[in-house]
């Protein structure tokens, strides 16, 4: 670990034992002082987060266990999950449809997506492939079951996009990285190919949401769109959900 690594990691996990070792080894001249300062800051965060539960919370929780729930169950409670998930997706779709029924709704989505690029500029610098299990898990959480084996990603994150959730991804491509946002619940988005603030953008409906492709050039868009259609197979099905 060098000095710049040490300083970076002080903001990631200052209580890591490796940092204490590095401070002792004086990877920077003032490493012990920097570590002490970071730990004091950490204690201050801890003190601020320390909000005690209200009196009676434990009793309230214990009293809320219904009598019939205490009897042995014959049906698995997990059977409710697909219904709950479907209900929440329908609710999300109803809300977003009211916002996104017009071409101007698609334009608003494009504006928000391009603006979001500046919030996470480091996303475009990642090169390591994202493990397949993380991709699958993210899409299961988003309510989609995909064959993601053909989707090579170098970045994956769950991001709020205005009042909606989206899956923010970056796919390496010959003409430069392409950012792909899957916006959950944006089913009524229109297919558009435009340039917005020097960014080439394509929007298209996808499953129960929308895909937004963004890059310097749109030359890789067809190939990437095709990979997404292939991932969806003949029809994109809702995942079972569950915790």
């Amino acid at each position, binding site marked *: 670990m060098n000095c710049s690594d040490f300083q970076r990691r002080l903001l990631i996990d200052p209580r890591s034992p490796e940092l204490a070792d590095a401070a002792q080894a004086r990877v920077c001249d003032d490493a012990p002082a920097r570590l002490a300062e970071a730990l004091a800051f950490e204690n201050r965060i801890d*003190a601020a987060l320390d909000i005690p539960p209200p009196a009676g919370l*434990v009793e309230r929780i214990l009293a809320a*266990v219904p009598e019939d729930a205490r009897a042995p169950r014959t049906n698995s409670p997990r059977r409710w999950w697909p219904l709950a998930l479907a209900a929440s997706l329908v609710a999300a779709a109803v809300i977003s449809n009211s916002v996104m029924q017009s071409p101007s709704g698609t334009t608003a989505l494009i504006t928000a997506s391009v603006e979001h690029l500046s919030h996470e500029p480091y996303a475009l610098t990642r090169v390591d492939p994202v493990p397949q299990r993380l991709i699958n898990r993210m899409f299961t959480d988003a309510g989609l079951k995909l064959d993601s084996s053909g989707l090579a990603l170098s970045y994956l*994150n769950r*991001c709020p996009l205005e009042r909606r959730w989206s899956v923010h991804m970056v796919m390496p491509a010959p003409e430069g990285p392409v950012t792909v946002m899957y916006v959950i619940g944006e089913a009524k988005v229109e297919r558009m190919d435009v340039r917005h603030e020097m960014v080439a953008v394509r929007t298209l409906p996808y499953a129960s949401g929308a895909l937004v492709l963004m890059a310097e050039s749109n030359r890789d868009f067809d190939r990437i769109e095709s990979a997404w259609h292939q991932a969806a197979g003949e029809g994109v099905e809702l995942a079972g959900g569950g*915790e």
Partner: protein
Amino acid sequence: MEAKRAAFDQLVRRLNADLYRFAYWLSRDQALAQDLVQESFLRAWRSLADLRDEKAAKAWLMTIVRREHARMFERKVPPLDDIADLVIEDQDTPSAFEMSEIQEMRDAIARIEDKYREPLLLQLVGGFSCDEIAEQLGITASAVMTQLFRARAKLKALLRGDSRGNVHELL
């Protein structure tokens, strides 16, 4: 059934404080936080047989809180408590100076974006490693590290008086 109740009582008593803190900082609403915690424990009751390991149970419960909160966020943005109005029952009463420092930090934590606050909460309230947080959030460990870095950098910027929490440090 008595054994199940005893195990559940123990789980609630051990984890309610951390879970409430987590729910409160996600929602910044005391009533909503209580509802989220109660709902999560009720689900835990139904799946108690699968929750033998305490750390796994905590991760599972925090995931439920996070998802339930996200669903509420999708449906509506609830009115938030003003952090300055929050009445805290501290066992060890801090001095006025300490209290003002704590309050400043609470304001700053409330102001950073959710995507930075969530991993920070999972690390400091949940006690999870970057890999475990990545697993829970369904993102890469490097994305978690970036978010933790930016969370602390933004807190420092806000406490320095940069009202937008701009981060100038290189990643």
